[in-house]
């Protein structure tokens, strides 16, 4: 079958094209939601795009469709490359791609029809969850078989992170979606809130983060032409991530009647997250010390470097806002929305794009269709992300400050309206970048001109 045609790096190519398509769709969905925040009645009352549906469509399409596809696609390149062995089965890889896309399509359709589990990032209903798990399982099996046949005995830290991501994503996805309760996808009461945020936070920290860090650990040494500063330190970061990240999700519900001991664990764990984050960033930055101009000269490397900057900000902000005294200001408002965009778009999304632009020439044997367009997308996404951060952070602080002064939600809405207009304006940059990226990635894959070879 043509859809399962075996070709060198076919899995990675298909994941990359999927990612580019979902970036366009996901950002357009976000843009639609942003329009509704300014003018709720502008689009009429079309049921399948009302805010309650378009928001989870946006978040899931971006997390799993755009960022997830790019990261898993890169994993299917990094593991074979780092263990010096071809991918075990490109056909299995293609099945993984199609199942993944089927999940995102079905998840989107069912959400637009009103079928939802109503828990953040776990809105997709049970049949979609099964497809996600199947795709994750196939990807894990394919890469595991590749590693079992490896020619390089030592597993580089990126391989550890990739396998960690597969295993722990499967864990958190199964438990977080309460898959043993197919009709609700949830349990009851406060334990469900705890479970939901164990998953909601884990989907960033144990799905997106390890994949993105794996890519950074691979690309930065190559682009700055230097060995990794310390492989031991990188492994310390990996194991400490798994030790600490798994139990900090309760910091999302500190104001809820969750057990105090669990809150204490979540807060101390959040602060302890500085250990694995510092291990990663210090290691990468010491690797690139004095060589940053080389990284900025590489299209993919430039994205990855920017992603590490957002990673630093996200991971300093995370522990800070886990402190109850700070959270009184920052929670339940647009500050958290800014933080989520930093983690998903600024950190893992930008690194995912960096992975695509770094690896594409290596799997096609040709240069990118347009380095200029890739650079343009870099600046659009970077400016857009910076704009999101500024606008949403400011709006969040105004909301938090106002509420603590006794203002009602209703009275605060006009105050943040200008910020929502700015947010929509900034979103145009991201959507434009997505369209440019889709064109460039498609042309790099399929629109090649004869005679152009990768340097």
């Amino acid at each position, binding site marked *: 079958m043509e859809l399962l045609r075996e070709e060198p790096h076919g899995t990675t190519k298909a994941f990359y094209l999927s990612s580019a398509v979902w970036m366009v769709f996901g950002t357009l969905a976000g843009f639609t939601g942003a329009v509704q925040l300014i003018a709720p009645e502008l689009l009429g009352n079309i049921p399948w795009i009302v805010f309650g549906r378009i928001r989870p469509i946006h978040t899931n399409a971006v997390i799993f469709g755009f960022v997830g596809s790019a990261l898993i696609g890169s994993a299917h390149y990094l593991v074979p490359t780092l263990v010096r062995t071809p991918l075990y089965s490109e056909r299995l890889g293609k099945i993984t791609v199609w199942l993944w896309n089927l999940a995102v399509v079905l998840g989107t359709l069912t959400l637009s029809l009103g079928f939802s589990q109503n828990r953040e990032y776990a809105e997709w209903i049970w049949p979609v969850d099964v497809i996600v798990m199947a795709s994750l399982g196939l990807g894990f099996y394919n890469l595991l078989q590749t590693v079992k046949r490896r020619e390089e005995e*030592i597993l580089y830290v990126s391989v550890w992170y990739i396998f960690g991501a597969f295993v722990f994503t499967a864990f958190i996805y199964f438990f977080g979606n309460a898959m043993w309760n197919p009709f609700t996808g949830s349990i009851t009461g406060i334990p469900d809130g705890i479970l939901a945020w164990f998953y909601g936070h884990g989907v960033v920290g144990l799905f997106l983060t390890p994949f993105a860090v794996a890519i950074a650990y691979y690309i930065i040494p190559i682009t700055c032409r230097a060995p990794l500063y310390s*492989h031991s330190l990188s492994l310390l970061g990996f194991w400490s991530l798994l030790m600490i990240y798994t139990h900090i999700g309760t910091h999302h519900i500190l104001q809820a009647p969750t057990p105090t001991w669990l809150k204490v664990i979540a807060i101390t764990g959040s602060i302890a997250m500085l250990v694995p984050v510092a291990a990663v960033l210090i290691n990468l930055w010491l690797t690139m010390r004095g060589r940053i101009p080389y990284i900025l000269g590489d299209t993919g490397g430039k994205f990855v470097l920017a992603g590490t900057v957002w990673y630093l900000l996200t991971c300093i902000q995370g522990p800070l806002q886990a*402190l109850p005294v700070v959270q009184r*200001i920052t929670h339940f408002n647009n500050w958290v929305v800014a933080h989520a965009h930093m983690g998903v778009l600024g950190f893992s999304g930008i690194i995912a794009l960096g992975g695509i632009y770094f690896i594409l020439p290596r799997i096609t044997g040709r240069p990118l269709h347009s380095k200029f367009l890739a650079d343009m997308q870099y600046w659009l996404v970077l400016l857009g992300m910076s704009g999101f951060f500024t606008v949403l952070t400011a709006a969040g*602080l105004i909301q938090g400050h106002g509420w603590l002064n006794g203002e009602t939600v209703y009275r605060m809405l006009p105050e943040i309206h200008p910020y929502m207009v700015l947010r929509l304006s900034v979103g145009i940059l991201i959507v434009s970048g997505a369209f440019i990226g889709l064109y460039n990635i498609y042309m790099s894959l399929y629109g090649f001109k004869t005679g152009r070879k990768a340097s």
Partner: protein
Amino acid sequence: MAYYGGWILLVVLSIWAALIAFVWAVRSGQFSQQGRARFLPLIDAMPGQASSQEPLPPSRGGYVLVFILGLGAAGMLCAVILSLYHL
């Protein structure tokens, strides 16, 4: 209390998965040769992997990232100041 069973199962499974991986890593010598492991990305396995980019002058790009760091720091500082104000 009925949910405790599920939690304990999750904890046990997670710890076992991590322990199995860790023990395998120790036994198969994954923590040896750390010096060589640093170079693994630099060993070309696929054709055309050599990085050919030219360094850019340090005035471009890097300063924008420094500015973003400053922006982030300013946002966090505002949150801390407001938190202290409302103590």
